[in-house]
């Protein structure tokens, strides 16, 4: 309850700052305008969201089946390899992904999306795998014992129990990606980072920086809250309170 209140009040502050910043017009004789127009902010928010959402969807689309397939057969080498790749991948800074893919694919949204998706793919595969693997063999055994078919076990037991873990991975990576996507603005791909970059570039105009920074922060916090709510919603009531997000 208190958490929700804190969250809401902080959100309100962010949104307030943003509105205030976007509503005050250019001041007098300054060579540069002190703010960018509100329409620009909205447009960049939309670009930013696109980068994050598309990357996330691509990662989920590829990551879920891979993670699922990995649980079907016991291939120790593969799973150990997966763990290694995921851990190393997570250690590498996201920034490196963006820059390297930009260098390879050319600067553009595609490169950013591919970089974000590549980075996100790893935790999603891992969490899907871990989530399904974590299902107690006794539960699976009981399900088989009561006559559930293979796909019924997958659909009614394994996936529902794994979904919270998977969602936790999606949530963490999405929040992270909001921040990483901001870097895209620095290299001219757009998104809220572009506004921040502008503000810094033209001599540190704080209002402009905040016009980019506040919505970025608000976006991250909001997505975290929303996905957190979804995560709780998809968590079967019986396993609430157990640490589903621990694997995230």
């Amino acid at each position, binding site marked *: 309850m208190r958490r929700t209140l*804190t969250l809401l009040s902080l959100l309100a502050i962010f949104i307030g700052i943003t509105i205030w910043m976007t509503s005050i017009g250019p001041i007098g004789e300054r060579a540069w305008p002190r703010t960018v127009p509100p329409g620009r902010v909205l447009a960049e928010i939309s670009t930013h969201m696109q980068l994050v959402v598309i990357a996330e969807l691509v990662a989920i689309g590829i990551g879920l089946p891979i993670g699922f397939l990995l649980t079907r057969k016991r291939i120790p080498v593969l799973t150990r390899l997966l763990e290694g790749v995921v851990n190393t991948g997570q250690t590498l800074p996201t*920034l490196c992904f963006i820059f390297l893919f930009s*260098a390879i694919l050319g600067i553009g949204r595609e490169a950013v999306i591919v970089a974000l998706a590549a980075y996100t793919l790893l935790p999603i595969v891992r969490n899907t795998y871990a989530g399904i693997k974590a299902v107690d063999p006794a539960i699976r055994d009981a399900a088989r014992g009561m006559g559930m078919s293979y796909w019924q076990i997958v659909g009614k037991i394994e996936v529902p129990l794994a979904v919270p873990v998977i969602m936790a991975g999606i949530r963490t990576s999405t929040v992270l990606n909001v921040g990483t996507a901001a870097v895209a603005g620095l290299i001219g791909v757009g998104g809220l980072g572009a506004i921040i970059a502008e503000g*810094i570039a033209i001599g*540190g105009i704080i209002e402009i920086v*905040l016009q980019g920074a*506040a919505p970025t*922060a608000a976006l*991250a916090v909001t997505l975290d809250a929303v996905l957190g709510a979804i995560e709780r919603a998809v968590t079967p009531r019986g396993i609430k309170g157990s640490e589903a997000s621990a694997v995230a």
Partner: protein
Amino acid sequence: MRVDDRLADLYSVDVLQDIWAWANNNWDTIGALTLQHLRIILVANGAGVVVGVLLGIFISGRGRERLADLILYLTGMLITIPSLAMYGILMAILGAMGLSRIGFVPAVVALALYGLLPIVRNTYTAIVEVSPAIIDAGRGMGMSERQLLTKIKLPLAVPVIMAGVRQAVVMNVGIAAIAAWIGAGGLGQLMFRGIQEPGRMGSILVVVGSISVAVLALASDFVLGALEYLATPRGLRGGARSS
């Protein structure tokens, strides 16, 4: 340049040779930038560890559960703020305070704030989760609260705190690269210079910069991992934590 051309360019052998050649001629630059990078992280995380551990110890005290919740939530919130936004917001705040808005200071402050969550959280959790039986035994044999903290709780928490420091540092290696954008220097400079520079030279700088940052991240992960192991009392190694 079309994507295909660029790909072809990057995968041709001579671009790799060019990268290697450039790196070979510029080890001193790379070294200097790495040191700059490390300096930001060291100062930031040094401060972060001191503040974080003290804060973690403080909120683990009896009757401070609500405060602990709040602090953990706030530090958790800090970490969700995208780094670029954090730099921007810090520029505003530091500017208002009359401090330098670009360069070393905002970078250090941002990284210190980011590093707070893993350190505070790990310190707090490790102290709070020391098995009640161990605390009971200690108190029962007449240890004062201070002795319980210094002889039991903190030694048991050290490995967990170290894990938090490791997490904070590794994360900050990447975030520090972005600080180049606000003029703090470091390996990020190579990446930003490269991405703005067209053609092969740009690619070379981006690749060298990115790989250096990546290597730095992996290396610090490894080194701090080793430190974490060394900081773990022998009796705790191998996962046997409870009594």
